C-alpha cells in the first residue's frame, strides 16, 4: 500500500525526533523547576510546564517539524528509486498527499506527546500540571507551528540533497523566529506569541485563563497551507 | 536439431533458421513426421523473437516442408522434394548471376565465358 510505504520511510526519523523532544521536554521541566530552587510544590510545575512549552519545546519542535517535512521525490531521486515510484499507477498528487498528511500528523504528535508528558512528570513527583493545559498548549503549538513543517515540505521539493535542504530549512526556521522577534514591523507575526499569547496565561498561576485567541494561529496555519500548496505545485511540474 | 545462428551477419535470422531446417530435412536429419518445437519453445531456446520463428515456420510451411498444427507444434511434411528442386534452381541462378558478373569484370566476353564452360563440362563428362 502506498501509504504504508510513505510511513515506513519516515517512521524512524519520527521516532528519533519524538524521543529527542521527550528528552528536551523532560530536561526543561526539571531545569525550570529547580531554577526556582523550591522543592516540589504543586505550583512549580505550572510555571515549569508553561515555560517549557513556550520555550524549549517551541524552539526544538520548530526545527523538528521542519525536518519532518523533508524528503519526497528529490530524496528518492538521490537514492535511485524515483523512476520506479513514478512508474507505478499512483499520481504525483496522491503521493504528495500521503507524504504531506503523514508528516503533518507526525508534527502534531511531536508537539502533543511531549506536551502531554508534562502532567505525567509532574504527577510522578507529587506535583500537578493540568492535562487540559498541556493538551491545549500542545495543540496550539502543533497547529500554529505547522508553518515550520510546511517550510520543510517546500524547501525539500525545491532543493535536492539532504544537507542542502536541511541547511536551508534550518535557516528558514531561524529567519521566521528571529525576524519576528527583532524587526518591529514583524513583531505582530511572532509565532511564539501567537501560540501562547501573554494574555492567555495567568502571570501568577502560569495556567491558561479566559479566552483563547485563535486568530494568530489560524493565520499561520493558513500560511502553512499556502506553502504546502506551493510545494504541491512544484512537485507536479518538476522533472525528476 | 541443432540450430546455430549468427545475428550479426546481416542475413535475416528467420532465413538462417529456414535454411538450417531445410538443410536438416534434405540430409535426412529430420524426416517426415518428426515434430518441430512449438514457436514459443524454439524462440526461448534460440533466444530470438517469437515473430522471427513465426516467419521461419511460415516460410517452411509455404514451401510445404512443414505443416503447422494449431497448438500442437509443427511437423515435417512429405512432398518436399519438388519444392526443394525449385529452391535449388533459384539458388543456382544467383550463383550464375554472380559468376557472369565476375567473368565480365575480369574482361572476358560472353563468348569466351561460354567456351570456358563448355570446355569444363566436356572435360567432366570425359573424366567420368
Amino acid at each position: 500500500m502506498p501509504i504504508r510505504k510513505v510511513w515506513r520511510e519516515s517512521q524512524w526519523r519520527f521516532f528519533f525526533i519524538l524521543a529527542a523532544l521527550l528528552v528536551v521536554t523532560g530536561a526543561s521541566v526539571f531545569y525550570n523547576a529547580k531554577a526556582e530552587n523550591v522543592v516540589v510544590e504543586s505550583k512549580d510545575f505550572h510555571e515549569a510546564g508553561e515555560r517549557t512549552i513556550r520555550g524549549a519545546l517551541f524552539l526544538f519542535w520548530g526545527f523538528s517539524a521542519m525536518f519532518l517535512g523533508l524528503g519526497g521525490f528529490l530524496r528518492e531521486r538521490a537514492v535511485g528509486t524515483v523512476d520506479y515510484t513514478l512508474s507505478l499507477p499512483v499520481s504525483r498528487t496522491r503521493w504528495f498527499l500521503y507524504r504531506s498528511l503523514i508528516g503533518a500528523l507526525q508534527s502534531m504528535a511531536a508537539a502533543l506527546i511531549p506536551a502531554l508528558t508534562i502532567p505525567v512528570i509532574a504527577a510522578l513527583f507529587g506535583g500537578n500540571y493540568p492535562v487540559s493545559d498541556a493538551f491545549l498548549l500542545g495543540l496550539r503549538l502543533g497547529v500554529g507551528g505547522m508553518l515550520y513543517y510546511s517550510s520543510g515540505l517546500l524547501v525539500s521539493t525545491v532543493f535536492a540533497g539532504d544537507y542542502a535542504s536541511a541547511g536551508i530549512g534550518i535557516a528558514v526556521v531561524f529567519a521566521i523566529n528571529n525576524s519576528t522577534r527583532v524587526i518591529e514591523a514583524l513583531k505582530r507575526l511572532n509565532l511564539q506569541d501567537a501560540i501562547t499569547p501573554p494574555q492567555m496565561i495567568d502571570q501568577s498561576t502560569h495556567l491558561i485563563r479566559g479566552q483563547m485567541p485563535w486568530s494568530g494561529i489560524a493565520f499561520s496555519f493558513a500560511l502553512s497551507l499556502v506553502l504546502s500548496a506551493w510545494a504541491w505545485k512544484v512537485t507536479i511540474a518538476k522533472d525528476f | 536439431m541443432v540450430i546455430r545462428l549468427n545475428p550479426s551477419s546481416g542475413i535475416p535470422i528467420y532465413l538462417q533458421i529456414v535454411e538450417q531446417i531445410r538443410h536438416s530435412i534434405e540430409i535426412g536429419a529430420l524426416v517426415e513426421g518428426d515434430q518441430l518445437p512449438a514457436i514459443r519453445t524454439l524462440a526461448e531456446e534460440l533466444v530470438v523473437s517469437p515473430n522471427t520463428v513465426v516467419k521461419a515456420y511460415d516460410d517452411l510451411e509455404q514451401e510445404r516442408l512443414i505443416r503447422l498444427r494449431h497448438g500442437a507444434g509443427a511437423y515435417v511434411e512429405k512432398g518436399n522434394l519438388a519444392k526443394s528442386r525449385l529452391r535449388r534452381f533459384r539458388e543456382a541462378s544467383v550463383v550464375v548471376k554472380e559468376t557472369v558478373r565476375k567473368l565480365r569484370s575480369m574482361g572476358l566476353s560472353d563468348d569466351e565465358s561460354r567456351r570456358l564452360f563448355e570446355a569444363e563440362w566436356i572435360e567432366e563428362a570425359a573424366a567420368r
Partner: protein
Amino acid sequence: MKDVVETRELTKRFGDHYALAGLTMTVPRGQIVGFLGRNGSGKTTTIKILLDVIRRTSGEATVLGEPTGSVAVRRRIGFLGEDKRLYSYMTVREIIAFTRPFFTSWRVETETRLLMDFELPLNRKVSALSKGMRTKLGLLLNLCRHSELLILDEPSEGLDPVMAEQMLQSLVRQAADGTTIFFSSHQVAEIEQIADHIIAIEKGRVMLEGSLDHLRQKFRRINLVFDDPPPPEAFRRDGVDRVIVQGRTISILASRNVDEIAALGPLLAAKSVDVQSVGLKELFLEKVKGDHADS
C-alpha cells in the same frame, strides 16, 4: 490500436541543450523493438518522457493511445530502469507484496515460477542483494504484471553474459505471451539478436528506423577494387548512402539499386566486385559517421 507508443516532433530542452530535437517514432504492437543509440543520444530522456518522470518541452507523445502522464495507462505497462534500484529497506517478499495490488493482470503462477527460476531469497532485504539479483527482482516485478507493454532502459547493463542471456530469454518469453517489448540499448549485438524492429536515435532525432529484417535485406556493401580508383563522385547515384575510398578499394554502402551500382564496377573497369550483407553495427556506425559528415 496498432502502435503502443507514438511520438511526434518530441523535443526536450535542458538549458540551451536539446536532448531531443524533434523525435518522431512509433512502436508497433506485438513486436520486440530495439531502441539503439549512443550515450547521450536521447534514449533515456525519451523513456523518461514516456513515463512522465520528466516533462516534454514540445511535441506529442502517447502510450497505449493516451497522452503520457495518464495514471490509468501505468496500470497496463511495466518499466525497468537503468538504475534498477528498489526500496532498500524492504525485503523481496515485501516489495512483491507492495507491487502486486497495483496490477490486476498480475499472475501469481508467474511470481512463483520466477521466484524459483531466479532463486530470489524472500526474506532478504533489497539492500543486501547483488546487482544481478536486483535486476532479476526488478524483472520479476515487471514480468508478473503481464502488461501490454514493457519498457526497459539498458536491461543488460551491469549483467554478466549468462545473466544477460537469461534476461533476453525472459523478454522473449514475455513477447510470446503478447507483450510488446520496447528496450533501449547501446549494445548492438543484443538488439540484433531479439529485435523485430529497430529505432536508432542520434542527437535527439531518429536516424534509422524499420523492421530489422527489412534493413538487413535492403542494405548492401559493395566493394570495388581498381588499379586507379575513379573519384568518389563517379559513384553518386540513387541508392548510394556512403562512398569510402580506402587505397585501391571503393567501398559503397547502398540502400537501393544494388545491381545497378554493382554494375558500375565493370563499367569503370574494376578489377573485382564484391557484394556483402551489412550487419546492424556496421550500418549504425556508418549512419552516425554519415550524419556527422553531413553536418
